Structures are given as C-alpha cells and as structure tokens.
C-alpha cells in the first residue's frame, strides 16, 4: 500500500517535472489528438484547425468558422480570441496554433521576423477609429475637435497597444492633444468605460461601435483616415494541419470572408 502510494507519487512528480522541463524548452506539447494518429490522411479536408485571432474578430470569425465547418464536414475550427500581442507571444512560446490573424501588422511581423510563419502573411481587412459616446451623449460630442474641450472625459487606448498607437497618430496628424482621463490597455476596456457612462467619449474602432449595438453611439470623423489599421492573417509554421489552415485563410480572404467582414464594418485591405 505504502509502496504503491510512493510509486504513484513518484510518477506524478516525474510527470510534473517532465512537463515543466518541456515547457521551459519552449516546445509545444503533444498536440496530436488520437484521431489523427495515422499520418496518412486523405486529401479531403478533415481534422481540427486552431485559429488564434485578434479579439476584434470575435463575431466575424465565429461566423466564418461555422461556415467553414458546414462547407467541409468532418472539420472543426477551434477559435482562440485575445489581444494580438498576447496571441503572438503565446505562438512564439509554442502554443499549438495553425492560423494567426492579427489586428495589426506589427504583431504579425514579430512572428514572421522570427521565421515562425509558413509563407508570408496576407492582409485581409482594415479598421479605422471612431468616436464612441454613451447613448445619451452627456458631453454633446459631435466631432474630433470636441474631444480636447475641458470637462469632456475622454478615454483612449495606451500608445503601447494598436488602438492607442492609432489614436496617437491621429493626434499628431491633426495637431491636437487629448487629455484622456484614462489610457486603457485594450479597446474593449475603452468601450466598457463609455458604455457604462463613466467616460463621455472614447476612441475605438468602427467595428467595436457596431458590436456594442445601441449601448453606445458612433461618431465617424474624417481625421481617422490618418491611421488605418491593417489586419494580416497567416499560417503558423509549426502547424500540423497546413492544408486545413490554408483552406481557412482562403475562406477569410475570399469573397465570403470579405462579405462577412464588410458587414461588421471592416474595410477592404
């Protein structure tokens, strides 16, 4: 009894250590599912494709994933949404992704510079900033020029994240200096501060305003054209299912993908 315990504990410990060491080495864990144990898979698409996509692509990619699964029976699309920077870090640390769709070219470049992509990335969408205000618009904001006015509580993204970099670009191009009450680390946090009425206005993407529905009002402004964000997509080099990955990218960059993305407010690349 005592011995059995000891053995089991030793095994567990060894396993934990092995896992730890494998993690340190930055190697991906054994990702093969029992289903694709046999290496000679037929040409017909099957299996699972894991897509790491920027948080702003949640609605569109969820829709496109269903369309993909419907068009290719026997396939499954696993979606993982987070900030592009987080996703790029996870992939470079060996996360088992097949496809990476970034909200900016900078994070995609981090992967391609490290030779972690299979082939070059393709741009598939663009996004521009828009002013979001609470539905009641308490500060009566109607243009970009209203934002620096005293008493208007403006929330933007911090310059370290793509939406903040875009906001900074617009500020520079227009010679305006915003005095934000908060610089958030993600566009969803900006939107949250606006939709809850904490802030009078926020700078977010056109698509975010659409997603938020009638909780916030979007005010497009021409100066936003100074900072257009481009979304690239690419196959991850360590992907075990590159055929499926490419097929998914075809769908996103093809006419069906374009239509879904355009409906959500994304521009053409």
């Amino acid at each position, binding site marked *: 009894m*005592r011995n059995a*315990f*000891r053995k089991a*504990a*030793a095994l*567990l*410990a060894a396993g*934990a*250590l092995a896992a*730890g060491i494998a993690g*340190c080495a930055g190697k991906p864990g054994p990702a093969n599912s029992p289903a694709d144990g046999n290496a000679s898979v037929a040409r017909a698409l099957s299996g699972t494709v894991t897509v790491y996509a920027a948080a702003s692509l949640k609605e569109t990619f969820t829709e496109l994933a269903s369309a993909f699964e419907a068009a290719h029976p026997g396939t499954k699309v696993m979606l993982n949404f987070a*900030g592009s*920077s987080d996703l790029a*870090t996870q992939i470079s640390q060996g996360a088992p992704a097949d496809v990476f769709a970034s909200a900016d070219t900078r994070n995609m470049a981090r992967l391609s510079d490290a030779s972690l992509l299979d082939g070059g990335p393709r741009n598939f969408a663009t996004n521009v900033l828009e002013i979001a205000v609470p539905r009641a618009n308490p500060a009566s904001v109607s243009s970009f020029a209203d934002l620096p006015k005293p008493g208007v*509580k403006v*929330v933007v993204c*911090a310059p*370290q*994240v793509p939406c903040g970099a875009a906001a900074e670009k617009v500020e520079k191009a227009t010679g305006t200096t915003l005095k*934000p*009450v*908060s*610089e*958030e*680390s993600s566009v969803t*946090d900006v939107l*949250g*501060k606006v939709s*809850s*009425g*904490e*802030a009078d206005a926020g700078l977010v993407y056109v698509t975010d305003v659409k997603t938020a529905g009638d909780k916030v009002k979007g005010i497009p402004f021409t100066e936003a054209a100074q900072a257009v964000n481009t979304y690239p997509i690419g196959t991850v080099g360590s992907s075990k299912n590159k055929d499926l990955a490419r097929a998914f990218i075809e769908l996103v960059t093809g006419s069906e993908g374009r239509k879904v993305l355009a409906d959500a407010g994304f521009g053409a690349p």
Partner: protein
Amino acid sequence: MTTSRNGTANDTPDASPDSGGHGYSGVPRWLYLPAAVGALFVMLPLAAMLAKVNWSQFIPLVTSAASLDALGLSLRTSAASTVVCLVFGVPLAMVLARRPFRGQRLLRAFVLLPLVLPPVVGGIALLYTFGRQGLLGKTLELAGIQIAFSTTAVVLAQAFVALPFLVVSLEGALRTAGKRYEAVAATLGAGPTTVLRRVTLPLVMPGLASGAVLSFARSLGEFGATLTFAGSLQGVTRTLPLEIYLEREADADAAVALSLLLVAVAVAVVGLSYRKPGRQVAA
C-alpha cells in the same frame, strides 16, 4: 496558553502528539514528495521569470518615470487600502467572532465573497456602486465628489478585494484566543471598550498584524477590479500590476523587470512581517 492544556502529569507523552515535542515530527515521510512538487510548482515559474530578466537593462527599466510612478502609486494606495481594511475589518471581525446573530453565516459568506470572486466581477460591481451612473455615484457626483478615474477608485478596488483577508485572519485569531480573559476583565469592572482596547486587541495582535500584511499584499497585487473600475493613467490610477500588463504589450523586458520588482516588494513585505499562523501570544 497551549501548554496548560494537557492537564495532569500522569498523562502519557503520546497523548499530546501536536505539542511539538522532540523526535516525532508528525509528518509521514512520503508526504515530502508531493510537498516538494507543490513547492516547485510555485517556485519554478518564478525561477523561469528570473531567467528571463534582461539584467543589463534592469535598472533603467525599473527606474523609468512610468515605473517609479507606478511603484509609488501602488505603495501609497495599498497603504491607504490597508487602513480602510483595518477601520472596517476589525469591527466586522469582532462582530462575526463574538456575537452570534441571525444571518451571521450569510453575512460572513458575503464578506468573504471577494476571496473567490473574479476581481473583474468586483470591478463591475464597484462600477455600478460608485460609478458616475452608479447607486451611490450619482449622489456623490451631486455632492461634488467624483470617484471615477481617481486614485480613490484604486483604493476602493483594493480594499474591496483585501478586506476578507483581514476579517478571516482576525476572526480566526479571536476565536482561538477565546473569551476567558475578556470575561475576567469584565468581572473586574472593565467596560466593553476598555476590554477591547486593553485585553482583546493585544491578545490578537499577531493575527491582526498578519491580516493587515495580507491585506497590504493583496492590495499590491490588485489588478482586475482596478482595471475595470478605476481606469489606467500614469501617476493617477496606473498601479504596478497595470503598468506590467500594459508594458507586456510593447516591451516584454520591461514587463519582466517590473514583475520582478513587484515580486521583490511582495516578498519583502510578507517575509518581513508575516508571522507563523496560529502562534499565540506568549505572555
């Protein structure tokens, strides 16, 4: 106090296995292995982070204006939130430990809720309480008090998540200490406030101190509620954890350096002042 427990001298030595005698440790040998795995589980990630530190850049990274602002803000707000926890947590723990009343278990469950609640949820709840459109926020705004996006909001978020740590530690200490000395003091003519001040609080001081330290440490690490409720602006609401979260987006080296700084501060605070749990007042 514990020494007087094992009554008479003709008790066999084995009758008190927990008395910490010599020779017998009470820990089966096989227990060491999972204990070691557990310790490793906590320490390995810290070691991995340590290995990632860019030492040549470490000093400039942690002494940048943004980093120092964040560190200073974190220390100040954590100290303030610890004071808030003491002011409200001590009475709360007294009430919970000393006076049984209807709904006490429910009250305790609610007080402890922030321990298990995701901090984001706490942040949302605070937003709907103290936010501009919130339950109290509207009234406060009419009175000219704005909490949104202020350092006060950071302190509130920290106190919300840290309060249970103080209450749990202190309630435990109060229950272990028992009421005997208080009863004696009362029969000798001391009023309730005198008993509290001269007997109860000195008796539970170690528990109170460790509770305060835990509250401070928890405040220092507070992230989710602050992010959701207070916002993020350098020097005003961007505490060290928020700065780390933001830097991680742009500069991994800076994030790792700041993480190490936070770990060092936390270890210093907890290590220097946290006493063995359960140890009672000796004299």
